[in-house]
């Protein structure tokens, strides 16, 4: 059986003229295939939406609260696992030092104190040598060298002040 143009009319969702309606009705009487399409069209266009059971929004709020709690718990566990991992890695990296500390803490403390005393003594010796040099050196340096040093220092100061003024007036990168 030729279904054209009837199935096109049925699928197009366009309003039909009275003449087309009449022709379609006549065709549907003899064509079970197009009749089924017409019935499906009718069932679809008269379909109603099914609402959820009462209290949907309340159930959503409960689910949201449970999801937030689960998220907080998961975040807490995540933080704990991260913290334990970081501490474990640090402990693994510091194990050579920790091993010594744990084996003989008194020896380690004594060696640290000894190092501190040595450092203090070295600094004092450097201080003494510097003081002697400052006392003796001016006598060996000629006046012309002193003048050159002072001039160079003055020039550098002027250059620095000039740069500072220039940069303040014309800021860079703006």
């Amino acid at each position, binding site marked *: 059986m030729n279904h054209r143009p009837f199935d096109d009319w049925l699928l197009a969702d366009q309003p039909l003229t009275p003449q087309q309606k009449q022709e379609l009705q006549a065709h*549907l009487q003899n064509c079970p*295939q197009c009749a089924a399409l017409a019935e499906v*069209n009718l069932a679809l266009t008269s379909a109603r939406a099914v*609402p959820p059971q009462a209290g949907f929004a309340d159930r*959503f709020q409960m689910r*949201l609260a449970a999801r937030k709690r689960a998220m907080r718990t998961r975040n807490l566990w995540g933080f704990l696992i991260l913290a334990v991992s970081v501490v474990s890695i640090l402990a693994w990296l510091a194990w050579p030092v920790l091993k010594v500390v744990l084996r003989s803490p008194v020896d380690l403390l004594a060696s640290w104190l000894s190092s501190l005393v040595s450092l203090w003594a070295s600094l004092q010796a450097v201080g003494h040598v510097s003081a002697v040099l400052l006392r003796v050196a001016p006598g060996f340096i000629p006046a012309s060298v002193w003048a050159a040093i002072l001039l160079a220092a003055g020039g550098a100061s002027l250059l620095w002040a000039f740069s500072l003024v220039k940069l303040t007036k014309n800021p860079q990168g703006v």
Partner: protein
Amino acid sequence: MTDVPAWIIQAQHGDDEAFTNLVEAFQTPVYNLCYRMLGEAAAAEDAAQETFLKVYQNLGRYDRERSFPTWLLSIAAHHCIDKLRRRRFTSISIDKDEEGQTELPDRSAPDPETETERKQEKDRLHCLLQSLDPTDRAAVVMRYWNDCSEEEIARTLHLTVPAVKSRLHRARRALASLWQAEAARNGPRRRPYESPAF
């Protein structure tokens, strides 16, 4: 519904009460889409709730230039399509009736017999829908239950408009052929298009 844009802005700023108003406003279209897609009340309830949770989590990314219902239905449709693909949906029994969730006949209607017939047809349609491809099913549900235009369906399902048209035609032909096969099994009965309302 006129308050929806204001609720969206408030919900985007963390107002849970405004989001609850959005849930109440859109629960039926979202639930209905999930119910028609998944075929079962419990699965539909779960999918609709999950849809709103996804919307809640992604509301900050929602572009207010877009239609909110279309965005919402898009999330629901994709959630259901994913669910159907995951569980390799097998067609549910045509005789299965969802307690308390099917459209009950309106006893106050002038002709209870006609109303019962109409209800049976809707149940039949609901069962036949389950035989469609998930994307075709989503297109049919959005077109006929949610009154979405072909352009909106195309945007929602990431298809072109001609593809939506073609899917809708194919789906209706498939439904008609199943409808016809089932009618042949159940014997002759009065055809609804013969009524003056057609």
